[in-house]
């Protein structure tokens, strides 16, 4: 209701108030508020949560819009350079016309939102936000001609990025075979309550952006499956069992804080309901927002940070998923219910894909490397990303500190064995380091 009133007022203003164009001499500066990209990113996150995307797919939804925004904005900030030639297949992006004025702040968020629409379903929600944002830009007083030209450039960039994205093998993988469930005890099988099919068994065939292949950083394999009481695997199983059965309150808090499950279904007989949250990638995009704000990053630094983290997440998911469907390891819940205690429940709902390595561990480690690279180690921050999902903020001394906690939280949650966490962190760090070494944002 309130929005409608605003829009109506704006309409009135645009219809009657703007007969004679009022140009704001500082429009360039005023358009470069990092808040615009923050809000756009948040809007994308909200739609991703609503539409329900699995964590790897969500990472794809973040990366292409971010790159689009980045590629526009570098024309405002000459010390930053294009990712063309740095990201696999990215080339020949549209360039602004020489000697023509652009409002790159506007063009950048426009490119971001236009691109975003191609990756989510509920376009109406994004369009509503976009309309609101464009009105805000109009308020700034950008010359109409510049305004129009900027939108056109944003759209051109969006088109080019979407075209590039269409060759990443995503579309093709939709038709690839589902995960094949077999009865081997060590092999992953679907888990309660929904017994969902394994998510994205062919994600390792998605084109990596920086890594030379999905297999570039293969982690150590999981511990050999064994039901012998004195075996390492059995002990690791009991470690998870006890972590839940005898959980310390702080560990419960940590597990819940990092749950980041996009779709948890609750089953009580006929009654089913779901709770939704941001994906783990979304959580790290949230941390990026917190960090950039705390560091007073400008529009360019903010966009660059989002882009670098998004790229790290994207490649980290591919690397992790490559291992998941190589080792195809069963989940603690399956082993424990089958051989230890039929009634044992993990603290968190077991996500629908193989156990090794832990996605949280890999992608958190990779993101923390990217953020540390940008903002330095020992960058303390208060992580309030999950507050809107009903979880209190947590304080971290550094990005690595946060990543380590995210990693171990999966053991506390009862959904990962220890090697998936330790080897996963190692795998993620290697991915992150390789990306920061090979991506040059500044000239």
């Amino acid at each position: 209701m309130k929005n409608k009133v605003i829009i109506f007022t704006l309409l009135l203003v645009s219809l009657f108030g703007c007969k004679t164009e009022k140009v704001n001499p500082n429009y360039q500066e005023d358009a470069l508020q990092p808040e615009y990209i923050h809000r756009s990113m948040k809007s994308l996150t909200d739609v991703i949560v609503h539409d329900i995307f699995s964590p790897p797919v969500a990472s794809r939804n973040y990366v292409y819009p971010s790159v689009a925004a980045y590629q526009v904005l570098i024309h405002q900030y000459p010390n930053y350079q294009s990712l063309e030639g740095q990201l696999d297949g990215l080339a020949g992006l549209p360039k602004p016309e020489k000697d023509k004025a652009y409002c790159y702040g506007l063009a950048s968020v426009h490119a971001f939102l236009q691109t975003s629409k191609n990756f989510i379903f509920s376009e109406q929600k994004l369009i509503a936000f976009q309309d609101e944002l464009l009105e805000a830009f109009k308020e700034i007083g950008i010359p109409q001609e510049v305004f129009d030209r900027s939108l056109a450039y944003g759209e051109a960039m969006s088109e080019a990025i979407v075209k590039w994205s269409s060759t990443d093998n995503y579309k093709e993988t939709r038709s690839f075979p589902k995960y094949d469930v077999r009865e081997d005890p060590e092999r992953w099988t679907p888990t309660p309550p929904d017994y969902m099919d394994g998510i994205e068994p062919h994600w390792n065939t998605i084109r990596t952006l920086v890594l030379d292949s999905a297999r570039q950083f293969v982690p150590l394999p999981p511990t050999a499956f064994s039901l012998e009481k004195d075996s390492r695997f059995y002990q690791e199983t009991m470690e998870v069992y006890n972590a839940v059965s005898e959980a310390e309150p702080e560990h419960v808090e940590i597990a819940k804080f990092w749950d980041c499950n996009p779709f948890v279904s609750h089953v009580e007989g006929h009654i089913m309901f779901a709770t939704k949250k941001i994906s783990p990638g979304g959580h790290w995009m949230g941390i990026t927002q917190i960090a950039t704000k705390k560091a007073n990053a400008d529009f360019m630094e903010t966009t660059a940070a989002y882009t670098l983290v998004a790229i790290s997440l994207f490649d980290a998911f591919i690397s992790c998923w490559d291992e998941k469907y190589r080792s195809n390891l069963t989940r603690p819940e399956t082993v424990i219910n089958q051989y230890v205690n039929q009634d044992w429940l993990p603290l968190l709902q077991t996500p629908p894909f193989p156990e090794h390595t832990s996605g949280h561990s890999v992608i958190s480690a990779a993101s923390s490397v990217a953020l540390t690279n940008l903002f330095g180690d020992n960058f303390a921050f208060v992580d309030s990303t999950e507050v809107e999902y009903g979880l209190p903020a947590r304080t971290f001394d550094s990005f690595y500190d946060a990543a380590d906690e995210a990693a171990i939280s999966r053991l506390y949650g009862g959904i990962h064995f220890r090697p998936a966490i330790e080897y996963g962190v190692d795998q993620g760090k290697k991915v992150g380091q390789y990306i920061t070494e090979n991506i040059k944002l500044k000239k």
Partner: protein
Amino acid sequence: MHNKYIVFLFLLLTLACNTEPQIESATTAALFTEKNSTASGLSFSNNLNPTSELNILEYLYYYNGGGVAVGDINSDGLEDVMLTANQGQDKLFLNQGDLKFTDITNQSGIKTNSDWSSGVSMDDVNGDGLLDIYVCKVAPISGEATHNELYINNGDATFTESAGQYGLDFSGYSTQASFFDYDRDGDLDMYLLNHSVHSVRSYGKISKRNELDELSGDRLYENRLNEAEAKFVDVSAEAGIYSSALGYGLCVITADINNDGWTDIYVGNDFHENDYVYLNNQGQSFKESMPGVLNHCSKFTMGVDITDMNNDGLQDIFTTDMLPYDEVVALKSGGEDTDQVFKIRSTFGFEDQYARNHLQLQMPDHQFSDIALMTNTYATDWSWSVLLQDFDNDTRNDIFITNGIVKRPNDLDYIKFVNTQNAGANERLTQAQLDAFLSKMPAQKLKNILFTQDDDLSFSELTNSTIGSPTFSNGAAYADFDKDGDLDLIVNNINAEATLLANSTKGNNYVSISLINANTAQTSKDAIVKVYTGELIKTQQYVTTRGYQSSSSHNLHFGLGDMTTIDSVVVIWPDRTKEVFKGLALNQLHEIKKGADTKPYVFSPQQAVAGSLEQLQIRHIENKFDDYNADKLIPELLSREGPAVVYEDFDQDGQKDLFFGGARYQEPRLFLRKAGEFVEQKGNLDFKKDAKYEDVDAAVIDFDKDGDLDLYVVSGGNDEKELNKQLEDRIYLNDGKGNLKRLPLSLPHTNGSSIAVADFDGDGFEDIFIGARSIPSSYGLSPYSFLLKNKGGFGVDIALKERLGLLTDSKWADIDGDQDIDLVFCGDWMNIGVLVNQGDGTFQLQSDELGLGQSAGLWNTIYLEDLNQDGQLDIIAGNAGANFKWKASPEKPVKLYVMDMDENGQTEPLIFYPYFSTYLPFTSMDELVSQVPSVRKQFVTYDAFSSVQDIKDFQQIKAESIVERKQIKELRSMVYLSENGKYEGKPLPFNAQLSTIQEFSINDEGNLLFVGNYHDYLTELGKNTANSGGMYKDFNAATGTFENYQQLPLPANLNTRGILPMGKDEYLISVNNDTQYILRMPK
């Protein structure tokens, strides 16, 4: 807009019609009139007021409603009524006659508390000749001292609650009690059905059935009032009754299910626990026998009734479930499990279940076959009670169903988008959140349903079968309340007055019978009554607890139609003596008291089926490949063909041998017959090497014309891409002694299905037709089939290479009588076709020309025989059958479109099938979106998707991008009889339509044998299991029908593939992924 206009026109027409005096038609709506409480005095409403402490989230069965019990409590000859309430007061009404009732609750001694009552029954529990009342309670959500209540009749229309004294004061989650005499000692024992409330988060193993649950587990109580204990005693454990938390018991009936004279128990369980069929072991104990008796059952079983539906003397079973019939609700609601989950559930040990009503017809061998799909009674939405009685007195029992749900929690938009809250995982939601959830959960009021049985097992169309006004209806009971000779109904509704449906059937005769034992302290319940009139024998058992949370009339009512006399009434008393009563008048209630002239009654053991069966130690082992993982939108698995069997004399010793070709990774095997025994020939290295092929068909051919039999094996499998080496066919040459060596020859690489060998060009060398089944992972596209001309025994030439369709069978025969052989073939999504030999080595494809132009089906097999003796071969063709979720006709075909929706190089098959008044897409939105995510752009919600009825409803599909369009116009198995060079189709009779027919065989006597079933449809269609095989002894040329049916002695639920004659009256029954059988029929 368009619709509104039509409705308006229709209204006009209706108005216009109203000026004419209305002629009562035979539609079900006309049978019953709703009487309101002002007229009837039945002032009762089960009102629910969800509170923060008690609501659907706190108690999952919050909206399961109350029950109705019927019985004459004051012995005035009129049956009275008790109605139970969940949060209000139960009420007892005295029947004053003329459909008027008086509320006597307050003076009756019935407690006026508001503890949660569920099911109710009226029975003479203490054997004093007066009906008592037993009320079940959901104690844990009620007051502390709550327990089930037993109201003993004081004889003056007042009652004394005595549950404690009788040992029946169970306190837990009770649903319903049923009183019956399981040990035939003359007193009534009690089965107490309770329900679990624990979360069904994970399936758990079925071994949990043996763990006692104090509050939720079912109980069996033996009546020992006249023994030392002087009360009812819990005998559950020793009697073999599961009393565990796995049982979500929502309905129970005690009836003699297997017709052996001992009363059995059927328990309908909600959720993943299958229903229980407890067969009574001579009163000693019970054995849960569901897997041996039923092939599958309802998944969310809510109501049950058992009676003889087809007047064959055998009990049949109906269970209700929750499948919506409205296409919008169907597409918006969660229903059948995915195939993956279906498979996982069975690994935990649970039996097959489908989320639809089941009408289980008992066969002569006492196995049940579900015919709900065939009779279109499978979808009545969220259904509770079912009552099987002859409501229109036409001699055929009808089906009454109550339905409706106050809060529809399986609405997919609700689950995925509406109710989602950003709450911490696994945490209880706050009260405010709960309330918000409730307000958003959709409600579904529905009209109750009465399917009238208008012909033998043929029921009124659903659209003509709704009665009354939309309600949330639960328990229901029938009785002839006004004694006008027909059965009326009382239905307990949530948040609305109970419905009294007054029956105004006219014109048909009836008889009602009330039974009294010689010694009135002995129960007459469980007695069986047979009414003989003309050709008709009607059977009913004296069972009152039926439907849902309710018990119905104690009188047995028989509709007699236009029968004018009753020849006799046979009562089989509870002690299983038989007494014959003659000279009973029509159209009245007879009180029959047990007399002295009784004789022992012998229950015939299960009817022996002619023939014998030998199980061979030859097993077909399917390789582990689930087609739906690779090809998500398919309706059937194409990798489950085979075995390939050939019975011929390979070693030329005068005895035929058996070749057995297995699935992928299973070696082909040759069994030589030596002295009557099959001895496996060992050491064939070529066979060993060729284990990697999936053998789907094979035939002998004297390829090199050296006088012995060579072997052509068709390779198949849907798991390898077309042209893959592993799909290549093979020829094995015989050295004359039965040693088969593979001939190095390049042959077709397809997922083959069928071979037909004959010398079509008359050059003396046998030629080969190879029919192909599919292009792997491109369902719907037609692969190449081949005609291979034998080049003098040295090689083959391709004489014909055509995309004929998804072939399943082919036969050479001179179909047009021009002295050369033609090729007849059939398959899926295609007409039966003939390649007519032009005599010059070329062929012309004909179908329409032969009258087969509307025959597109899911054909498995054809058999050619001149049945009508006109000199031209007729075609007997095996199809998916009429007992199938899809229905098809030339007017309303099932439609298949194939296209690459998202242009990623992978085709999508989209199927639309007729569903009641409209069409439904076969794929779920979830499956489609997983393959083509962009579909979600158009259909952001399930609600949006629920309007999809046709390919046109997909914006992203352009007509020109559709690469293949196919249809199914006929799903019944048929005989096509020749008529002047053209074929005239006639469906095979009832029993041949029960399942998918895999193959026919006709013996020397002209008997038609067939084998059927198919387990490899997707769960959405369901395993097809209702008939493993049968035989028609005669063909009536005058009517063109097969007659005189008998079952073959095959195990139920067999996944047969073929029937191969092995000699006179001996057949090899080939079975997929199972052992093989030899069937011997009596000479």
